[in-house]
């Protein structure tokens, strides 16, 4: 069941936005690295 989530405070929302930005930045770094050529060839 898709459970409803409790409401977040503004502070928590900002932390979440920052965390999303960190994940996206790391993913982009990985995609541009040499390892990604090998890894993503399998998908």
């Amino acid at each position, binding site marked *: *069941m*898709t*459970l*409803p*989530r409790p409401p*977040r405070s503004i502070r928590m*929302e900002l932390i*979440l*936005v920052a*965390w*999303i930005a960190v*994940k*996206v930045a*790391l*993913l982009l770094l*990985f995609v541009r690295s*040499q*390892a*990604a050529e*090998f*890894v*993503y060839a399998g*998908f």
Partner: protein
Amino acid sequence: MISFLDNRFWLVTAAVILVMRLVPARKGTLFGLVNIGALGIIAGWQAAAVAVGFAFLYWAQLAGVRTFRRSRKGLFATWVGRTTLIVPLVVFLAHKWLVELDPRPAAHSELRSVLFGLGLSYVFLRCLEAAHGVVWKQQRLIDPLALFGYLFPFPLLLSGPVNRYDDHLRMDEIIAPSDWLGIVNDVTTGFFYKFLLAEYLRVWWFGTGEPMRSAGWADTAVLFVYIFFDFAGYSRIVLGIGRAIGIPTPENFRAPFRSASVTEFFTRWHMSLGAFVQRNIYTPLQLFLVRRWGVRRATAVGLVVLAVAWVFVGLWHRLSVGFVAYGLGMAAVVWVEKWVRDRALKRAWARTRVAKVLTRVLGPVYVFVVMTTMIHLVIGEIFR
């Protein structure tokens, strides 16, 4: 089959989200309708046609059997009811034979690719869940299009999770969540797990030129962590997509490596499968056997039910002797844990703060060692 790394997947998903949120219609039926197009683009039109045909035929079977069982009672009616379980079982076994056991790997390659795109192992579980609900629990039978959407939801095709039939029944009443930040967090966390942590671990341990294989216990331990990030990441992406579209999508992982026992581990790892087994095999079989054998044979009932449930889980993963051994081994571990827990709870020292802290600290180490050892039994069948 189009993967998460293909832009077309996300274009299709965006289109489905828009339709589901903007068109004022019954959500279950509407999703079934748009799912045909989504499935056609993502898994191929041949696969979509097979899936629609199967869902409509299965709907007709469920409707017919339900009507028949309302007018007739007795052993014959019971067996007519059981055909709703036997038909998906036969399809599942045929699919397993074709994918796993056929000694000619090149044979039926086109059929294999169609079946692979449909994720029939999960469809089989959804069929059992729907049949259990409609034929035995007298739940409402949704219309054929909605049933198609339940059995073959395009984001949940390859690796589940196992969505619940009664959740799907309530789909029309549930308002799709508008927590877009939470949805973006789900999808990005999933990508982070699946396409970064899992793959970085793979490259770090196995290198870029070597296939993933286990040459020893340490390799299996790394593969165990790899499977977690890969599968939990996939499940999290799907959870986010499900929330965005508004289709009931269960949570599949909840920090499993924090578990203090193997029993607890399976309430946190592939949770939707564990819950499915509990609802559709463990509890009904336990009730059936207790009625037949009586409560005085509760120990025997407990052992048989545990063994059946775990062998089912093993064989569902792969039809092999190794996975039967894995299932029986897991049943034995869970049984021993229950035995120890029942006795330990009677001791005063087990309730002390020190004992609780030690359990929380050493429990995860014990779980990791036991799980890695159990997976080591079958790792050669998973990574070949």
